[in-house]
């Protein structure tokens, strides 16, 4: 794969080193010549001095043939703009932006950034996992190219669905229970007459937008 990385700070440097060792072709863009020189002494000539938000620099970098474009400067605005130029001007299939302010995630997605990565979010998730009870609903995956997700929901004893057949419970539109894990860890393929019990875990495909409604339908009392 040909990977263009904008930003030769700590994240950019370690990322370049790691993907090089996996055999990928890498170009690292940064405005600071001294930083690039230091990195090139160790990793070989993989650097390009320039502004990763400038079309000329990206042209010189051969961005049009890049398989992946990664912007990891410490400025959210610079990462957003670099990814948008790579996406819209050079038609790079996948763009990744580093993001510090976690409120920016929906905006970046909406504006054409394919993947956002944020150490803020990772640390926050860790803190939440350590300080709160395990959530009743865990999103396992988002189905590629769609607005559907797969979620794992645990049925609490107080839930309205306990003792009910699957056909008698009302789930949000486009939701389907695809797997049932009983309290004793037995795995079952659910049918319309399967009765849900307290402590069951159900794996459900649903619209991402209905996540809250799904949570309420299966755990609400």
């Amino acid at each position: 794969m040909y990977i263009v990385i904008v930003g030769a700070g700590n994240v950019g440097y370690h990322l370049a080193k790691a993907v090089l060792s996996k055999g990928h072709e890498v170009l690292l863009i940064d405005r600071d010549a001294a930083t690039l020189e230091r990195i090139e002494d160790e990793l070989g000539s993989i650097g390009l001095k320039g502004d990763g938000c400038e079309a000329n620099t990206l042209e010189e970098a051969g961005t049009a043939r890049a398989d992946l474009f990664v912007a990891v400067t410490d400025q959210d605005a610079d990462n957003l703009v670099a990814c948008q130029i790579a996406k819209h001007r050079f038609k790079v299939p996948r763009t990744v932006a580093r993001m510090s302010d976690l409120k920016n995630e929906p905006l970046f997605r909406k504006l054409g950034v394919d993947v956002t990565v944020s150490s803020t979010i990772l640390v926050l998730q860790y803190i939440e996992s350590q300080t709160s009870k395990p959530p009743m609903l865990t999103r396992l995956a988002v189905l590629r190219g769609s607005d559907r997700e797969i979620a794992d929901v645990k049925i609490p004893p107080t839930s309205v669905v306990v003792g009910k057949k699957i056909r008698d419970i009302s789930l949000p539109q486009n939701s389907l229970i695809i797997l049932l894990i009983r309290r004793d860890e037995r795995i079952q393929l659910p049918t319309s007459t399967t009765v849900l019990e307290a402590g069951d875990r159900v794996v459900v495909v649903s619209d991402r937008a209905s996540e809250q409604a799904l949570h309420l339908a299966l755990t609400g009392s």
Partner: protein
Amino acid sequence: MKVLIMGCSRVGAHLASLLETDGHEVTLLDVDPSGFSKLPHTFRGNALLGDGTDEDSLRRGGIQEMDAFIALTEDDNTNIMAAQIAKSVFNVPKVVCRVYDPTREQLYRDLGLDTVCPTALIAESVRKRL
């Protein structure tokens, strides 16, 4: 109309006083209070400290009631990001964004932003006088 200007640069301060003369209600937003000294002493609008790429700062600046948002900091990417937030998160009816880099300006104009490029304007203005 109600106008929020991000960046109290010379242009920002000058535009604010022009708009006020025209009877508009102007709010200025800047991360650095020193720019506010460029405002004329007759300025009656609000001058707030805040980062226009931060949704909370924009809300504090009253972006939800604004008829127009103008991004005038010295940094192209800050302006582009703030303008896109104003447009696609807060649905401000009129959004104008300064971009110094002409190729970047062209790209964002193609993507639907209302952009002004001082570099191109000055070059063209000088060219016409020769």
